[in-house]
């Protein structure tokens, strides 16, 4: 009787600590320690890389890189910065049109069938094609084949093809997450479907789409391989010409100048690295801001927004 009473008085639910054997507790501790170490190993390289970038750049830093163009013996990065800006603008426009259109079609219009599966898989496969392969094809087909030379147009096409899948995917997911009630409301008001798409569906999907475009821009900032043989590089500012005029850009400076014998040129590599990292960080913060603002203004969709978190939405469609 006394034993049963003792058993009953023990807390129900979780077993007491003393019931778990020492070896199981040790294994539990070991497992979580390993997981903690893994997390540390993930955080350390981020800090280390960022620290290294700034630590190498600080002694070489001079503000004139913003005003001077690159010369053979040093100079600045004003031309590369302008070129990267032009590329970003161009990619931003092109990928907004094509990527959003692509995602809109796949989410809204595409009939279920083999063709749609093909289109969707093509987009997914494209996101797995190595960027150097896209760059090589751009070089062979556009720069040499069409006699464009190193040019803005070739660089833009190559970069856009590279990032379309990201924007398309983000758009498709964001549209899939628009609450059905919104569409029903538009329909109940007698709204034409095209107008409902523009004013209700696409508008509510804007945060997700914007995040996708920002991701695409961040990738464009950091790419080197596809640009080396399509954009070329020049020591002057980018021109308004679409073809026959090379475009300078930041990653080229990092990739080419880092082992230059001249200290002044070498410094440009480290300075451009800082600019690259700052640009990417700014874009990441921008995407966070977009997500944060969309959550603030439309708490109904608080779980959506971010590209990664948006992954859940597809099944709901």
């Amino acid at each position, binding site marked *: 009787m006394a034993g049963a009473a003792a058993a009953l008085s023990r807390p129900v639910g979780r077993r007491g600590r003393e019931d778990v054997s020492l070896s199981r507790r040790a294994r539990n501790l070991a497992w979580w320690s390993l997981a903690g170490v893994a997390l540390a190993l993930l955080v350390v390289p981020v800090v280390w890389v960022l620290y290294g970038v700034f630590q190498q750049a600080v002694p070489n830093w001079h503000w004139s890189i913003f005003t001077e163009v690159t010369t053979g013996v040093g100079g600045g990065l004003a031309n590369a910065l302008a070129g990267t800006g032009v590329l970003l603008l161009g990619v931003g426009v092109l990928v907004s049109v094509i*990527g959003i259109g692509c995602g809109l079609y796949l989410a809204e*219009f595409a009939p279920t069938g083999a063709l749609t599966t093909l289109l969707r898989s093509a987009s997914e496969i*494209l996101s*797995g094609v190595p960027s150097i392969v896209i760059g090589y094809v751009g070089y062979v087909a556009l720069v040499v084949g069409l006699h464009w030379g190193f040019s803005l147009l070739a660089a833009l096409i190559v970069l856009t093809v590279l990032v379309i899948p990201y924007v398309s995917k983000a758009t498709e997911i964001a549209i899939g997450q628009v609450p059905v009630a919104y569409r029903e409301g538009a329909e109940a008001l007698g709204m*034409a479907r095209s107008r409902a*798409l523009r*004013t209700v569906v696409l508008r509510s999907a804007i945060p997700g789409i914007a995040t996708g475009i920002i991701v695409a821009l961040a990738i464009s900032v950091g790419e080197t391989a596809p640009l080396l043989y399509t954009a070329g590089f020049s020591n002057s500012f980018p021109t308004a010409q679409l073809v026959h005029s090379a475009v300078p850009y930041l990653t080229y400076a990092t*990739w080419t100048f880092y082992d230059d014998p001249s200290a002044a040129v070498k410094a440009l590599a480290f300075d451009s690295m800082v600019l690259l990292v700052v640009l990417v960080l700014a874009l990441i913060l921008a995407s966070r801001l977009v997500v944060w603002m969309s959550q603030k203004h439309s708490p109904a969709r608080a779980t959506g927004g971010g590209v*990664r978190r948006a992954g859940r939405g597809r099944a709901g469609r």
Partner: protein
Amino acid sequence: MSSDEPGDRARDDAARDLPRRDDPALARTGRAAKDGVPDAAKAARRSRVARLSERALLGGSAVTAAVPLAALVAMLVVLVIQALPAIRYNGWHFLVGSGWNPGSTYSQPVHTGGILHLAGASYGAWPLILGTLEASAIAVLVGFPIAVGAAVFIVEKLPRALSGVVGLFLEILAGIPSVVFGLWGVLTFGPWLARDIYPALTHLPNVPVLDIFRGSTGYGEGLLTAGIVLAAMIIPLIAATTRDLLRQVPEATKEGAEALGLTSAEVFRTVQFRWVRTGVLGAAILGLGRALGETIAVALVTGSVLQSATNIYGTTTTIAATIVSQLDSAQTDPTGLYVRVLAEAALVLMAITLLVNIAARRIVRRSARGVALPVGVGF
């Protein structure tokens, strides 16, 4: 409920917004009567315009939706046409042979089998293919446990606020340009490994598997360094996917296991991991695909030497790194064969990455019913 109210407000917003802009009923009762146009005609025109505008939207978006497929097909066509002479010239030797010699530019080009080439030109890409596979394999072997361990820790042990900060770290890690990773690898990380870590590895017991760490450790540029740098680059993809999948595991199954008296590590092994393993495997293979195609960082860190690594620390190169580092000098080949050989290399690389990516997506699709993996999104 505070969670319901915002939703209603959003819906109200939509509702308030709509009639102002486009409400056929409003237009009919208000304006149509004034200008005397019959209601029916007006409504018909309206619906015709609406139909046309929907057609335009459909047509326009359908054209853009064809762009990825068209780009993919165009790329394959260009690569195959470009590579055909090289494929005919190299034969199977390209896939299995070693030795990479563009031939002598000083002697007269010669014809072999109808293809003009430099005397002595011979291309065996096996060292490149091997280097690609080895570096990527190391990347996954190193990166996968770290990514999964970190993801488990983030989901189970970190408070919500801190896990947001770590999420930011993941995004930064994914966003750091590969040329920055490459320079870090070649200037800071590689030399540190060669000085402080690799010598210790050579003293591991001389038993099978561990004996691959024996031999000369070099100066930090090489296979193992490249693999580790690649690991850092694919960790964000695997970790973010694993984290998101783990968060979707139903609480009740975990609680059930806990009620049976399992420790949290045992709960992970027996319950959570079974829910997510296929998705995690798919993410690992996607990471492998990314590692296979990574170019700039690898070109900087492997040493870009056109040969197989002599040991795990040895310098080597990969297909992608070879294309980017050789395309300049390939243009000095007056017969043009070298540029075409690089097209053949690009085809091989594309074939490998396509196989890997398709495999990953198959696995993911089969597993993920209702659990969508954010496929191909690097952030």
